[in-house]
Structures are given as C-alpha cells and as structure tokens.
C-alpha cells in the first residue's frame, strides 16, 4: 500500500515536470525565440489553453501527499516555509501574466506581461530545481521529525544546511537548463517559421549543455548522498529510470539530427521521467533524508497515513485520474498540430 502511494506520488510529480515543464521551459525562452510581438504571442499559443491543467498536477500532488503522507507534508511544508512562499508567489505571477497578457490589445501591455511571464518561469525553474536538490541532499531533521531551513548557511552539504548550497544551486542550474531544453524541443514541434528555426538552434545548444551538466550532477550526487547509487543498484524501478534517461538522450540527439520533431519531444519526456523515477526509486523508502542523523530521516513507512484511509483513497484516485485524462483528451484534440499566428483575434490560443 505504502509503495503504491509512493509510486502514485512519483507519477504525479513526473507528469507535472513533463507537462508544466514544457510551459515553464517554453515560457522562459519566449524572448529568446520570439523577436517580435507576434512571435512572442505564438509562444503563448503554443503553450495553449491547457497550461492550467498541467499546473494542477502540482496542486493535486500536494493534495495526494496530504491523503497519503500527512505527517511528511506537515514537516516538509513547515520546514521549507519561506521557500514555499517564494514558489507560491512565482506561481501567482506566472498564472496572472499568462492570462492577462492577451486581454488587452496594446503592445506595451503585452510586452510588460511577457517580461513578467519570462521572469516568473525562470524563478519557478530555479525554485523547483532547488527543491529537488534539497530533497536529494536532505534537510536537518531532528529526532521529532521537525526541521527549519534558512536560505543559506555555510553553503556546505552536511549538518546544518540551508536551502541554497553548492549542490542545490547546481541542481537548480541543471533544472533551469533542462526545462529550457525540454521547452525548446516542444516549441520545435508546436511552431513553424522563425520561432521554429530559432527553437531548433537553441535546442541543440541547450541539450549539449544538459549532457555536460548531467555528468557534473551525477558526480556531485555521489559525493552528497553516497547511498544514492547503491540504492539504485538494488531497485529494479531505478534501472527503468536509467533506461529512460539513456534512451531519452539517444532519442533527443538522433531526433535533433534527423529533424524528427516528435521523437525529440518524446525523448525529452523520457529523459525527464527517467531522471525522476531513478531518483525516487533510489532513495525509497526515505522521503526526507536527515543531514544530522540518518536514523532521524522520515520514511514512507513511518509517514504514511494509517487506518483504512489509504485503501479508500485507492478506490477513488484511479477513477478521478481516468476522468481527468478524459477531460484532457476532450479539449486537447482541438488544439493539436502546429500553432498558426492568431487568425481569430478573439482567441489567444
């Protein structure tokens, strides 16, 4: 039961990173690939009206964490207090700037909100990356399962750590570049003309950078969490993740070379999913690692909801998932294919 819920939560996070990662990545490249107002609007059209459905994966991840691991939610959310509010405020800024930029037909209005949109997306990528870095590195949990984090302490990765240190900053940079690469790959698929060509050139540069940074992160992670790679060897699911990473990278690079746009995007999704799955499987059952004393780490078994709440949720959760996917399909097929510049001025999408 606990394993199932751990897998469900990992799945939801993977969905969020793949789907909203496209919006975040494409959003931060808006000025890099769009030189004119019309081109920047094309990027918004490419992200499409389902962006909020993508973001709901994060919100529902929070809700599902509440169902399955309430005490871990309580420790983590309170411990990351300030970082959490930065994340929430960035989400506010991003949602608003995405929606309002199209409402008033004025170049100055749009430019202002597009700029805001780019900034919020960059901030989001950094914050998500730093959060992932914190989960891998661990937090200063005490024996009562409580911790609190400053923004930074001595930038070291042991003992009383802060949110930012050399490791979490590297993960944040890696996430920023990877989501940008993911967004660029998807923009190539979704657009035509100059935006398409610029995205294609950027995608090549970004994916080469991802490759270099991946090597750096791998070495760093081995130093920060020595139990990570042994864990990976023990867990068949982690092997699946590694296959996803390697297969994804091959698909991305061959896709970029042979200009098969769909393969690149699929490869990019497999790469992101593979990384997350490998990470989640390797650290299982530890959900929050303690940098002070390993025995104080919070595990999935210790933090799971008790009683038959989990069994009940396992009945309604798949039904809700099936419904959710059906809503997505109902809307999505109206928006398939490459986006054209706005012919219908009534609609930004």
């Amino acid at each position, binding site marked *: 039961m606990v394993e199932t819920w751990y897998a469900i939560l990992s799945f939801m996070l993977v969905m969020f990173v793949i789907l909203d990662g496209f919006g975040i990545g494409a959003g931060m490249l808006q000025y890099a690939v769009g030189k004119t107002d019309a081109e920047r609007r094309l990027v918004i059209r490419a992200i499409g009206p389902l962006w909020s459905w993508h973001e709901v994966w994060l919100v529902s991840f929070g809700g599902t964490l509440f169902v399955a691991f*309430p005490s871990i939610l309580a420790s983590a959310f309170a411990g990351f207090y300030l970082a959490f509010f930065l994340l929430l*405020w960035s989400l506010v800024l991003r949602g608003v700037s995405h929606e*309002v930029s*199209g409402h008033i037909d004025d170049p100055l209005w749009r430019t202002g909100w597009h700029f805001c949109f780019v900034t919020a997306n960059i901030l989001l990528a950094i914050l998500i990356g730093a959060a992932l870095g914190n989960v891998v590195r661990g937090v200063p949990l005490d024996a009562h399962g409580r911790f609190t984090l400053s923004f930074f302490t001595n930038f070291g990765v042991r003992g009383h750590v802060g949110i930012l240190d050399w490791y979490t900053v590297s993960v944040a940079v890696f996430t920023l570049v990877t989501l940008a690469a993911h967004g660029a790959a998807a923009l190539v698929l979704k657009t035509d003309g100059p935006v398409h060509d610029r995205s294609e050139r950027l995608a090549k540069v970004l994916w080469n950078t991802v490759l270099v940074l991946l090597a750096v992160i791998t070495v760093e992670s081995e130093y920060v969490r020595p139990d990570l790679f042994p864990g990976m060897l023990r867990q068949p699911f982690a092997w699946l993740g590694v296959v996803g990473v390697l297969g994804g990278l091959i698909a991305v690079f061959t896709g970029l070379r042979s200009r098969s746009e769909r393969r690149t995007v699929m490869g990019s999704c497999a790469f992101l999913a593979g990384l997350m799955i490998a990470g989640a499987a390797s650290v299982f059952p530890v959900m929050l690692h303690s940098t002070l004393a390993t025995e104080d780490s919070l595990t999935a078994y210790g933090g799971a909801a008790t009683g038959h709440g989990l069994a009940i949720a396992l009945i309604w959760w798949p039904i809700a998932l099936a419904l959710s996917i059906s809503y997505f399909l*109902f809307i999505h097929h109206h928006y398939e294919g490459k986006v054209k510049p706005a012919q219908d001025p009534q609609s930004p999408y």
Partner: protein
Amino acid sequence: MDDALLWHRLQFGFTVTYHYLFPQLTMGLAWILVYWKWRHLRTGDERYASAMRFWARIFGITFTVGVVTGIPMEFQFGTNWANFSRYSGNIIGQTLGMEGMFAFFLESAMVGAMVWGEKRLGPRNHFLATLGVAVGSWLSGYFILVTNAFMQHPVGYSLAADGTLRLADLQAFLLNPWALVVFLHNQIAAVVTGSFAVAAVGALYALRKHHAKQASLFLKTGTIVGLLASVLVAFPTGDMHARKVAQYQPVTLAAMEGRFHSGPMAEINMIGQPNVKEHRLDNPIRIPGALSFLAYGSFYANVRGLDEFPEDSWPTNIELLYYSFHIMVGLGTIFIALMACACVQRWRGRLEKTPALLWMLMLAFPFPFIAASAGWMVAELGRQPWLVYGLFHTTQGTSEVVSGGDVLFTLIGFVGLYFVLGVLYLFMVGYEILHGPQSASSTVNPGGTHG
C-alpha cells in the same frame, strides 16, 4: 515573537477571505453562463451568445485570480498549520486530495476552452466545456465545505493511539449534515453575488444608454435570478444553517445573537452593541420571542445564553462575531427588498425608466461580497476557540518551527501582492465593461484582438 499564533491566524484569515471574493463570483456566474449558452443553442438568439461571450471574459479574469490566490490556501495547511495537518490529515487529506483530482482537473481543462475556444470547439462542445466549468467549480466548493464542516462538526472519525484522528466512516464524513446545509447556503449566496454583478452591469449600460439589448438581458437575468437566490439564501437555507448552529454549537448561537443570559421567549436583537465585560447588550432594539421561534420552532423555547457555558468555551472575539452576523443578516434582508422592487418594476416594464432603482442596482454589487465575507467570519469566529470543534484547540494547530516574524514577513508579502492583484483585477474588469459586449459580426474589431 511568541504571538506567532496571531500572525498565523491573520494570514490564513486574510488570504482566505481575499481568495473567496473570486470563487463566489465565478461559482455564481458559472450557471448563468450555462443557462445563456443553453438558450443560445436552443433558440439561436445571438443576444445570449454575445452575453455569454462577454461574461465569459470577465469569468476568465476572475477565475485566474481565484486560481492563483487559491493555490496558497491548499499549501498553507502544511506551511502554517503543520500540527493541525498531522492531527487531522488522515481525514481532511481525503477531501483536499479529492478536490484536486476531481474538481481542479475538470475546471482547469475546460476553462481556457470555454473562454477562448468557442469557434474551435463548435457550439455543442463549447456548451459541454461551459457545463464542465460549472460542475467543476461547484464540486470544488463541495469538497472544501466538507473539509470545513469537519472542523465545525466532526463526524466519521476515530481517535488513534498516537492521539491523531483516523477516518472511520467515509460516507459519514462526506455526507456530514453540516456540509450539506452549508453547501446549499453558500452556493446560493454565490449565485446572489453573480446575479448582482450581472444586474449591476445591466444597470450601468441602461443608465448610459449603451448596448440596450444586452442591458435588458442582463437586467432580466440578474434581477430574476437575484430575487430567487436572495430569498433562498435566507429561507430555507440560512434558517437551516442557524438550526444546525443551535443544535451543535449553542454557545456560538448565543454569541452571534449577543445573548448573555438564558431564558424562554428569546429575542432577536436587530441592533445593539455587545458589552462583553459587563455581560450585556447595550442599546438593543429587540423582537421578543423571535429567536426561540427560529431556532426551536416555539416562542416559549428556552435559548441558552452565554452564562450557561464556561467562559473559556466562548468564542474568542464575540464583538466581531456579533457584528459580522448582523451585517450578513441585515444585508440579506436588503437584498430581498431591492431585488423584489426591481422585479416588480421590470414586470411592469418600467425598470429601465426608473433611474433611481438602476442606480441602486448598479451600486449594490459590492454588498453580496461583504455579506458572504461576513457570513464566513461568523462561521470561523464562531468555531473558536476550537480548530476542530470540541476536539482540538486553535492554539495547538500551528507549525511550531515557523517563527512569528517569518509569518509576519509572508503576511506582508501577501498584502502587497494581493493589493497589486486587486488593482489589476479591477482595471481589467473595468476595461472589459467599458469595452462592452460585442456581437458576433464585430468580433474582428481590432479592440478585441488577443494573443
């Protein structure tokens, strides 16, 4: 700072009150949009399509602000109320999880297509998307109200060995009688807000003599729905809610009414100031026996006053509770009167020739927001000093690792951010209203360009 509790409470109170200004409008408008879209499908009358398109744009802006201010609400359970989450997460986690999975996915998939995708989706699918948004937003409301109802009147739980709560009976929890009553009361209140907004824009256009056809449609829908909803929100749903309070939170009822002493023939105090120190109501204007009758069905029923309860079980802010309740009830009464006058005049065909009434309709739109906010303050202040009624004190619920200073910092951040959001929101809705509804033939008007 050891007054962290105060900042935690203020932050949650501020962010939730501000947030709920937006969903009450969207939940109210949602079914009006469904109705117009349906009328358009059935009759082909372009007026309905144009009205729907115009209000869908306002809906879109409102929905966006509702979503972005709503996400912090869900996360604050963990960030600010970690001990409460540990204590009751096994139970309220269910509904918060369901809200995301059942309601948010539905709303978020449909809303973009509803606001912007009329041509792409075609009439039938566009109607379905509109319906999806309405169902999703009301479902979301239900799950939140079940969560709140558990805090007001906990049912379906058992106490585990470690002192936290366990879900014992999902059905009892989801069909909490308190939740069912509050759902009716609250959702109809949202329709009041929506209908007043529609009527106010209709009145504005009628007074300015712009968009005459739309003005009369807005006035028609706004006043008829407004009258129905204003009546229903008071009777039977408000009445049913008050009986629940009398039954499960008698001390709250006493505080709401400023009733310090027990006795039969309990009066309703229309006006008066609670004097908590002296245990009496100053300068009251009373209707004798009315409270006994409303709460228990007989003028001679004994209604318990605050003196029957130990002082540490009294709601912690009786004055604010009392004033909030009286503001809600007073405004609710005025709503019925205003909408009844408007409906009578419209039925006589003279509403658009009665500028005084149009002015009142136009200026009335903020008051349902005030009434709903006051109503929620009654519910939440009335619950004090409990976080989960009778089980768990508010003082026990906060995140002890978060200092008061940190909360004050984020509270100030929210105040600043939400101020800017409010200005932006009013500007954009004002822009849409001044722009006015457009007929289908004028959609290529450059003023309507988006991208």
